[in-house]
């Protein structure tokens, strides 16, 4: 299932982050992600998943090591890197920057200085993709948790990144909400996007992934196909879904 024949799109070398208070959030992360891969990163609370994602599009600066996008260090042109690597934050409340749903989606494209017609076209397209067209003129503040998450997805999609990273996209979503986000994930993957998904709710999504990475106390401890790794996940605080004999391809909430 994994795609070693595709070129490496994103790579980290000895990526390490130590916070000023001495917390070692991630340590010597060496990671190679191929174009078009669907990677799930799992790990217990506080294991460093969020910190890792924030390094991948240069939101925080490594204490040691570096991140390469298509072979180039992202620090060379951070804006270009962020344009290619979209990140949907864990907390969708605090990433609202618009006074209306449509304005919020327009924020990214406007930053890229796209012509107004193109901005409008993208807003329309991606609101449709996530199914929020009807709420375009609403204040994002009054949306439900699931709708806010969809809005965050639309805001990132509107920048048309190649790589899309999701930080815990299922938190706080009900069953239909999870199914909708999942559908989006799968169709984004099918349309050629590289997906990096942080979650510990493996039973909802693992069937769709090419690769599973487990982080434990800031280090990568397992990296391989879901079938290889799933049996060993529990010792790292990631609950193994649905009993030991369950097959990986049953681990999805889609149908």
């Amino acid at each position, binding site marked *: 299932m994994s795609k070693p024949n595709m070129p490496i799109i994103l790579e980290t070398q000895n990526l390490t982050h130590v916070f000023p208070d001495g917390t070692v959030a991630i340590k010597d992360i060496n990671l190679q992600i191929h174009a078009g891969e669907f990677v799930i990163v799992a790990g217990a609370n506080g294991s460093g998943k969020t910190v890792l994602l*924030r390094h991948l*599009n240069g*939101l925080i600066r490594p204490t040691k090591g570096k991140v390469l996008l298509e072979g180039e260090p992202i620090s060379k042109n951070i*804006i270009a890197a*962020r*344009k290619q690597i*979209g*990140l949907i*934050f864990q*907390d969708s*409340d*605090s*990433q*609202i*920057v*618009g*006074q*209306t749903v449509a*304005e919020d989606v*327009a*924020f*990214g*494209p*406007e*930053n*890229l*200085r*796209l*012509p*107004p017609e193109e*901005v409008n076209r993208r807003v329309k397209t991606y609101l449709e993709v996530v199914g929020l067209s009807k709420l375009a*003129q609403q*204040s994002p*503040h*009054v949306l439900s948790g699931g709708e806010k998450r969809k809005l965050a997805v639309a*805001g*990132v999609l509107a*920048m048309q990144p190649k790589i899309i990273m999701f930080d815990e996209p299922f938190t706080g979503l009900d069953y239909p909400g999870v199914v909708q986000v999942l559908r989006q994930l799968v169709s984004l993957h099918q349309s050629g996007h590289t997906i990096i998904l942080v979650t510990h709710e493996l039973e909802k999504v693992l069937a769709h992934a090419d690769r599973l990475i487990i982080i434990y106390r800031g280090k990568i401890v397992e990296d391989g196909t879901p079938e290889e790794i799933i049996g060993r996940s529990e010792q790292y605080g990631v609950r193994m879904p649905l009993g030991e004999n369950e097959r990986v391809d049953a681990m999805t909430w889609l149908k």
Partner: protein
Amino acid sequence: MAQIVLFHYFPRNSILHKMDGRVKLICMILFSVAISLVQSIPSFIILTASLILITLLAARLPLITLLKDMKYFSFLILIILLVNSFVIPGRPIPGFPLPGVTVEGVMTGLIASWRLVLIIMVCAVMTGTTSLITLKNVVEWYLRPIPLVPETRIATMINLTFVFIPVIFDTVSEMLSAQKARCVEGRRNPLKRIMFIAFPLLVQTFRRTEELILAMEARCYSDDRTRAVFATTAKDWLILAFTVLFLAFILFYSF
């Protein structure tokens, strides 16, 4: 919720709603200037009647609601009336029980407060028919030619302020009800009361703001961004021309 309480924009489909915001702002300023210049009672009456007609017909705003909102200003209006009545020298009102009140004073006070009411009405029509986003874009457009003024930054600040208001509003009400549950209300010490509101409010909003900044960076925030497009139609010019003629007529008539 908070937005509805705080800002009286009424989404409608009226002539004024559809007007180019830039031209509308000019018309509003012209009206305010005319209001501060008129002298004679008949011109006041004509201005008032025309403003009522504009509110009802051209803006399709609920006049009663707007008048109710004037209660915030009633104290200011009363003060102006009272102070003028006592301070302006002139003939005492025959048979009036309070000494010191003069005919000239009451007249001046009435005119001054009438002026105030009219200016408030003009503002209400402007904010009632213009969304905050349009207003922000209009401000940005007018600031653009002024050197040394970072108009995009200011527009971003205006936008973010209105993104923050409902957030703070909700944080405060959540905090107050949580504190009510723990009987903080019973505390008399105002020092502690302010501390109990301000401290958690700042801690929470700071954290939120940190996240928002990261989210803005992740979506490539830039000062060099797509600009809002405005469209001025023949109707806008017609309204402007009519406003100028009408106000010129009133001022001419007034002197």
